[in-house]
């Protein structure tokens, strides 16, 4: 399996293997060193030093290869030609895996992995290496030690998930992309198309990324491994906070555990009393921790100001959501919206989806200037441009919502399992043929491959 993973990673550009293997060996070494020093009675300074060494080994490639041009651009100016730097596939993903491993070993959540092969496979596992999920070593490495036997139901379930992922990517995301790309390429005088383009991009990126994740989780399942869930119907969220519990879960929990919580505690610790400037220490911790985390989350997606603004906007949403929680509850009571829970829920989901879609405009735009141009031209008046493609994209988005509801029902109540086997097999075959018909031939690269 390790051989297959390394082959997958290096067959197009063998140089990429070098970028992978060197940090893996270094992190493996530092992991062992940390694990060898007991917390009780051991040399704490040395332990910390090894952790630092490991973190530098894991993070330095990411920082150098991805952010050199960005930092250079800030000092030298944007007119200068960027340096030609080749960034290996999935660098951000495997770096985060190694960081979580080191911190978990340091915090004694797990023992250091002594087998270099198992550790290397955890980092380089081929279904996950290009776009995650960012599985934790503590749950993944023990699975590598288990003996895997052939189980038809498991293989079928994995296969179905792979197909569902292909459908989301090649039929929904890539078809919607035709309209969305056209709208974002020339936003002037597109009118209502811009509003619809922003909503449809929300579907495109979800189907694209969750489609890849489904393929990765499905393939892992076929091979006998269970990966963590990465999406949980995020557009049904009632708040931005809930959205981040349902969107890219493996990243958001990583950010929570390894960035937000340490920063928040570090902010709260020096505040001696309960409040500072009449603001609770807890609130200070949350605000500074969240804004810093989301700033870095934006930067993690790419060295561009559009991603930074996207991250900060989400940080702002979260901070406002946190600090206005009580007053919003009071307001809901005041207008008696709490008496109509369904309306309240629908309204909350609608507002959250709109806030997320606004942020996606920054995420999708090539520059901040283009994002602001996009906002500038949004109108409710139809432009008449690309109407057929727009309608087709809307139909696809609606179809996807219906299928997702069906899939959710199956997730909860296993409704498909009640159908006779031969009907299920026929349905599967029919679904594959539909993919053949409607999949876009010239596939766009997965959006999250670039991260």
């Amino acid at each position: 399996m390790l051989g297959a993973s390394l082959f997958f990673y290096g067959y197009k550009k063998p140089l990429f293997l070098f970028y992978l293997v060197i940090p893996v060996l270094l992190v493996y070494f530092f992991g062992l060193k940390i694990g060898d020093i007991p917390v009780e009675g051991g040399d704490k300074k040395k332990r910390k030093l090894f952790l630092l060494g490991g973190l530098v080994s894991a993070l330095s490639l990411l920082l150098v290869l991805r952010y050199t041009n960005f930092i250079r651009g800030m000092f030298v100016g944007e007119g200068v030609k960027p340096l030609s730097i080749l960034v290996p596939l999935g660098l951000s993903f495997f770096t985060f895996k190694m960081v979580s491993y080191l911190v978990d070993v340091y915090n004694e959540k797990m023992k250091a992995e002594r087998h270099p092969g198992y550790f290397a496979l955890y980092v380089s596992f081929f279904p996950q290496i290009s776009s995650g999920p960012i599985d934790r070593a503590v749950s993944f490495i023990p699975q590598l030690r288990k003996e895997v036997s052939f189980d038809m139901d498991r293989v079928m379930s994995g296969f179905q998930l792979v197909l569902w992922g292909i459908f989301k990517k090649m039929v929904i995301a890539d078809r919607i992309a035709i309209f969305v790309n056209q709208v974002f390429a020339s936003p002037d005088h597109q009118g209502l198309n811009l509003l619809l383009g922003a909503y449809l991009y929300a579907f495109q990126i979800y189907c694209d990324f969750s489609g890849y994740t489904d393929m990765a989780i499905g393939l892992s399942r076929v091979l006998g491994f269970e990966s963590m869930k990465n999406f949980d119907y995020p557009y049904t969220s009632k708040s931005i906070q809930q959205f981040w519990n349902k969107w890219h879960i493996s990243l958001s929990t990583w950010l929570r555990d390894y960035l937000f919580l340490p920063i928040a505690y570090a902010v709260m610790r020096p505040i001696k009393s309960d409040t500072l400037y009449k603001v609770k220490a807890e609130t200070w911790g949350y605000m500074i921790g969240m804004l810093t985390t989301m700033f870095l989350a934006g930067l993690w997606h790419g060295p561009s100001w559009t991603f930074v603004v996207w991250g900060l906007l989400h940080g702002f949403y979260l901070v406002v959501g946190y600090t206005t929680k009580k007053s919003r509850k009071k307001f809901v009571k005041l207008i008696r919206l709490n008496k109509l829970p369904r309306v309240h829920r629908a309204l909350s989901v609608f507002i959250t989806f709109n806030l997320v879609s606004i942020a996606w405009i920054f995420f999708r735009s090539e520059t901040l200037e283009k994002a602001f141009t996009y906002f500038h031209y949004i109108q409710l008046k139809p432009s008449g441009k690309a109407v057929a493609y727009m309608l087709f994209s809307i139909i696809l988005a609606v179809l996807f919502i219906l299928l997702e509801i069906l899939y959710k029902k199956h997730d909860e109540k296993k409704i498909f399992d009640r159908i006779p086997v031969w009907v299920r097999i026929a349905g599967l075959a029919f679904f594959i043929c539909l993919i053949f018909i409607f999949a876009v031939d010239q596939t766009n690269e997965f959006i999250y491959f670039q991260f």
Partner: protein
Amino acid sequence: MSSFTSNSKISKYLVRVVLFLVFIFLFDRGLYYLLLKAESEFYIGNKFEEKFSQFVSGKDYNTLIFGTSRTYDGIIPFYLQFFLKQRIYKDAFQGKGPKYNYYLYKMFKKYNGVPKVVIYGVDYFIYTIKSDPKWMSQFDLKEEEKVDLFSAPLLLLKNKKRIDNFQNNILIRLQEQKSKEENEEDFKDFVKVQEHKGAAIANKKLITKEPPEFLHQDFPVYPGEEGAYFVKLLEELDRDGVTVLLIALPDFVGSHVTNVQLDKFIADLEAYRTRFKKLYVYNFNKFDKFPLWNENYFNDGGYGMTNSHLSPEGARLFSEMLAKEIKKHYAEE
């Protein structure tokens, strides 16, 4: 006991796999057949012949240009008319292969009369072109398409390009109906082709840097998809006494290198000269003939890309060069 269980399990799985394959086969054939039906229904009744006859009526064109998108972008009637002072009708577009050209020529002859010269922009991939059903539907051929059920394991995959074209054409028609309501313009396609003065610069996509590895494309073998129609067309033109000029358009340097058997391609065209006395071959896909390295003259193409289109600037230069070369054919009796 356990071996009995595992044997029964294996046979159960095998039955499921066989059942799955049977369903895939049935749905693949069934859906493909339905798509073909839908496609033929979709293309029926576009009254092309009527529109065409009105369009060419009284214009007395003496030159006809054929080709695909490379010719659409590369040979501009406006310049040829300017330099040659001839009456030129061009019908070159993506998806217009030899079969389309053959039937178009018959229709052209019927309503315009026999032209003096046919300029045919020939592509390296001429034998792999299949005329788009959208264009073929312009002729009331009433050809019943035979579907060979066993020609491929999956017909939907084998014909994916055609299915995608069909889907795109549906969307384009919906879109055009909308714009027709807005500006009520008819004969749009004909006018568009005649007035086209080169591809939009915004779509420029050149691969200028040679990668360590890239595709090397062999020259496809005759007859391929529609090679037989190419010969049928040449035979008919020969019978009508039409001068035929086969033009190899310039490729951007990367594409020139990608298409590794250009010599074989030109030799293949030259071979037609022995069969048809009024047929001439002009090869502009040579460094000493056209600046194939000049990025300004091309809109796309490059290493690993078999197809390459001239930019408006390149098309202007090329059309001028072409006019100079072929002028003599109009002086001939």
